[in-house]
């Protein structure tokens, strides 16, 4: 383990103050999808629906293209973005698979075999060397 800096964890966005401030409107858009009528309105006209939320052009594009990791990078939080996934009919497990770049069955197999091990996945250095 290398010190106490969570920025050194690979493949992970810690939802801290900086991420939260940046992602506020993106996440509040996702939050609105808790309501069935909003899910319908969004699916009927995504661009018009997104106009209600003053997110950045980058965030908006990440939503429209369902670039899940990019949404997280831009301040999205998984419990919010998962509401967009739910709107698309994507489960938590399939969403996780997409974000790792694995196909759905391979991810499921990995989980059945015990999941992604901690060895080799602790620090960014592990990934750079791996």
């Amino acid at each position, binding site marked *: *383990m290398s010190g106490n800096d969570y920025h050194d964890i690979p*493949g992970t*966005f810690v939802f801290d103050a900086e991420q*939260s401030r940046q992602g506020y409107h993106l996440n509040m858009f996702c939050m609105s999808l808790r309501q069935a009528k909003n899910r319908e309105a969004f699916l009927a006209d995504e661009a018009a629906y997104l106009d209600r939320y003053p997110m950045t052009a980058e965030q908006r594009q990440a939503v429209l293209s369902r670039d899940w990791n990019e949404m997280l990078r831009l301040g999205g939080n998984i419990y919010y973005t998962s509401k967009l996934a739910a709107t698309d009919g994507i489960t938590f497990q399939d969403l996780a698979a997409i974000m790792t770049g694995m196909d759905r069955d391979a991810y499921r197999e990995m989980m059945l075999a*015990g999941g992604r091990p*901690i060895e080799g996945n602790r620090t960014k250095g592990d990934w750079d060397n791996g």
Partner: protein
Amino acid sequence: MAKIVGGYATSHVPAIGVAIDQAKTEEPYWQPVFAGYEWSRKWIEEVKPDVVFVVYNDHATAFSLELIPTFALGCAAEYAPADEGWGARPVPTVHGHPELAWHIAQSVILDEFDITIVNDMEVDHGLTVPLSLAFGQPHAWPCAVIPLAVNVVQYPPPTGNRCLQFGKAIRKAIESFPHDMRVVVFGTGGMSHQLQAQRAGLINPEFDQRFLDLLVNDPDAAAAIPHVDYLRDAGSEGIELVMWLVMRGALGDDVKELHRHYHVPASNTAVGHLVLEPK
């Protein structure tokens, strides 16, 4: 006087709720998950709590970025199961215990815990999945429920030590309630899992088993685990485990481990489950 008669820790994976709601519990994938809860189903049926005090977290359901309470204590008469995006779970309305909940609220605020009192709140899988695991699929939940929602979504959650100390204050509050009543305290969430980004799927059984051991026998050591260790070693969502420390604090100094269950995976998550009894 009210009495804490047991502690019940469990993961609260949403897919477990789906498996129960869709009658998949006997499928090969799910059977080993649920097998570990059979013992505790019988245990809680015998213990017959009047109230379960459920420490859980809201997952951007009742609370959003508009308002993020570190500790939100439910003092309401009832709580509706929420639609989290996939429709509401087909489970009974949760009935609260306003009298005991308010008693706890007053006691812990005077003990210098800065809680938020909540009287209007929907509850998500974080609370309802543990109820389903403990009580199955009744037409009505067999006891009152006091929800304590802990922030673990917005960094930073409360420290492990703060959670343990808060549990102790909750114990003092419950034990000073002047009515006979049996209370079981639930700690929920975890164990190791990461739901997000390129490292999703992380599972760390060594961390989890060590956490279970420390939680039972050396809670101060468990409480000293810094946030970064959870995030790194148990996955970004593994930090939910701090909530188990609230339960542990409420059980008193020494406990007897009555039951342990550990299984990988349920969806993206390592499932852990403990039943404890105060000594």
